């Protein structure tokens, strides 16, 4: 049961069940839909940006504990950050959840609880769906983001 507990840490179960920053954002400047065609999970990100800073970040959707917790923790972590800072945290997060490498883990704060995903390759896309969706806004891509693109 131990490596399962590594994956499903208390924080993940808590955020999966009670996601933070969940809902609409009426004064959002950007909206983006993300989709994982492998499992059918969908989410929508709402973001308010001012002077290159992400002032507010909210999301809606449904998915597994990993994808909901990742989206919830992401919105907490990235509020108030500049696009460049977000890019840097995304790179660190992506490396941690795909390789399990700990060298940039201190950049992640609470998001570090998702490191267990690296042991479950089938679940990496769950953890990165919200992030790919956000990066599409940052890169100003059009259309729905898919984990398969």
């Amino acid at each position, binding site marked *: 049961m131990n*490596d*399962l507990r590594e994956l499903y840490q208390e924080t993940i*179960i808590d955020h999966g069940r009670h996601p933070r920053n969940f809902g609409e954002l009426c004064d959002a400047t950007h909206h983006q839909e993300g989709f994982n065609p*492998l*499992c*059918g*999970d969908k989410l929508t990100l709402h973001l308010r940006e001012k002077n290159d800073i992400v002032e507010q970040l909210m999301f809606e959707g449904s*998915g597994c504990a990993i994808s909901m917790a990742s989206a919830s923790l992401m919105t907490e972590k990235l509020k108030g950050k500049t696009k460049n800072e977000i890019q840097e945290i995304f790179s660190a997060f992506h490396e941690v959840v795909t390789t399990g490498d700990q060298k940039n883990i201190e950049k992640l704060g609470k998001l570090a609880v998702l490191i267990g995903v690296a042991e479950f390759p089938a679940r990496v896309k769950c953890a990165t769906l919200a992030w790919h969706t956000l990066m599409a806004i940052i890169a100003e891509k059009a259309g729905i983001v898919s984990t398969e693109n």
Partner: protein
Amino acid sequence: MNKHDFPILQQTKNGKPLVYLDSSATSQKPQVVIDALRHYYEHTNANIHRGVYELSERATKLYENTRENIKNFINAKKSSEIIFVRGATEAINLVADTYGRINIKENDEIIISTMEHHSNIVPWKLLCEKVGAKLRVISISDSGEMDLDQYQKLFSAHTKLVAIAHASNVLGTINPIKTMIKIAHEHNAKILIDGAQAFPHLSIDVQDLDCDFYVFSAHKAYGPTGVGVLYGKEELLEKMPPYQGGGSMIETVSFEKITYAKSPAKFEAGTPDIGGVIAFNAALNYLKNIGMQNIMQHEQDLLKDATQKLSEFPELKLIGTAKEKLGVISFVLKDIHPHDVGTILAHDNIAVRAGHHCAMPLMQRFNVPAMVRVSFGLYNDKTDIDALLVGLHNTQRLFA
């Protein structure tokens, strides 16, 4: 039942036996099928329908033996009505591309159902887009049964074809296809039955059913991957244009004119999966030796036991409660996503399917993004069901 015939089921992970509950996705293979595949490559490998040497004649004979055996297995009139393809998906695409190309025109209508697998939706949708035809969709009830009244009403003078599953890969529902075939014929429409799920579990008699096309895959019926079967009535196959162009499917070729071979060769361009087809014969004989009736009875016992235990499980909702079902059970657990359930069960070496099961319209019908699916093969027994229940308790404990 016969678990010892399946070498893969003897393996363990961290001391836990493999509990394989995903036979609807693909079945495991008995030793006799693995041996037949190996024996072919060690002793018989040669291209078929070409060589005059003994090895090629032997390979050809074994390949054609499988065709003959399938003909008898599903009670087709002639072995020329049995066409080898890569799988049920390719068989449906073949019918859409060839029969569809010459018979489905602008404003014509094709009837499918809400419970179809994507492989029995997408080829028809593609055809409709190409020729300007329309898809009509049969509704299903909350228990997962076809709405036959509404089915009748979908027919119009434009209806050319019906394409429906014999059994649902998600709900397990065994559809009343004999009645549905009769209704289609009363409206002068042809009908294709997707037997991918049903073939490994039920006795099939295509003449008694009177279906125009019946398709299935070997790999779900204890045979190798890469082999599938299209059954078609001779008079339809004769009039259909070829599928792919290449070797084997011609009579004569010149740069001015090509004449095509008759069925089945007309639809089997290129070198097929000879070894796979020959090994599939071993699977058919294996099924015949056990007896389809015994397999059905065994799987119905498992279905009954598992349905009862799961329906008593706290905070679990069964999806698909039709009266006639295969050994397929889908469900959702309250507040725990199917993918999380799948991952936690996998940790106990229990293999189930979690996701949309290539049936997104059906997920929408039941208003869930995904489901957990448990599906039985002839090798499962009640210890597998008990292991599943322990795994589900562990899942709830982890999330408590």
